[in-house]
């Protein structure tokens, strides 16, 4: 587990342009809509699991609620390693991806404030995790879907 994983706001201090691209792509459905992304976790047998989730940027951190007794909650509680990928846009071939350790947040006052910042209705059995960042990647493409295509990467590592 990376020892130097950062909160979203500390990541943004280190790499402002990458964080801004991440925010824009996570909230790709526009104002008033929830952020939507794919969350990958590690199953008990070591294989990858993949789910769509609604994360949120709140009080300087990146958070996600997951259903209380869901397999992905068990994955995160057992092995906090995660990967998060903003929904890819079919139009502009641009993507944002980050990885790091996830930590369950049990502070009831913080949870109450976090619930209010999420667009979707949070149920009482959902568990709140903070997603710390150990790496982030923003990808755009030159000449997408042509023989001359080539990726343009903007990377950050803690």
């Amino acid at each position, binding site marked *: 587990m990376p020892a130097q994983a950062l909160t979203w706001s500390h990541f943004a201090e280190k790499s402002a342009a990458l964080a801004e691209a991440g925010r824009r792509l996570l909230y790709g459905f526009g104002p008033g809509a929830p952020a939507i992304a794919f969350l*990958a976790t590690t199953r008990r047998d070591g294989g990858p699991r993949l789910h769509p989730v609604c994360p949120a940027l709140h009080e300087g951190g990146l958070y996600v609620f997951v259903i209380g007794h869901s397999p992905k909650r068990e994955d995160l509680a057992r092995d906090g390693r995660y990967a998060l990928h903003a929904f890819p846009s079919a139009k502009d071939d641009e993507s944002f991806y980050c990885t790091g350790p996830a930590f369950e947040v049990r502070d009831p006052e913080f949870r109450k404030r976090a619930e209010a910042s999420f667009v979707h209705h949070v149920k009482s059995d959902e568990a709140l995790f903070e997603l710390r960042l150990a790496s982030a990647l923003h990808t755009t493409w030159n000449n997408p879907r042509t023989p001359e295509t080539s990726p343009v990467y903007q990377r950050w590592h803690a």
Partner: protein
Amino acid sequence: MTWDEFARADPALAELGFERIDSSGLVMLATLRKNGFPRISPIEALFFEGALHLGMMWRSPKALDLLRDPRCTVHTLVSKKDGTEGDFKLYGRALALCDLDARRRYCDALSAKIGWKPEEPEFHVFALDIEAAGFAQTRAGKHIRKSWRANDSR
């Protein structure tokens, strides 16, 4: 098992998955990095000769993941923020397509579908050996869930 074998085992679920994957030609792929972290990548998916094929750039990190550990998860894209279109996913193992004739036929099939194909030898393509499948949809407040496993006795 191949896609066609899965479709014979659970035709209704396979029909849902085929429509969702074939309409966009893109899926999200989760693989395992060398350090054990999961990785997520958008990739091209193509139904070809009875199997679901996953195409990737030559020596891309996700392709190297699969060559090291073939376990993966495939998930359809989500284009509606309310999720009413439903999520389809597959668990399985990615098997590298190495036969040159098969790779040429794959390129021809991809070109026929999207008007573009990769050039030999600068690409990877894998056929998915399907172990499990699932579909989840929320519509008008109702949750619909369907699942299938290769080792189920049903």
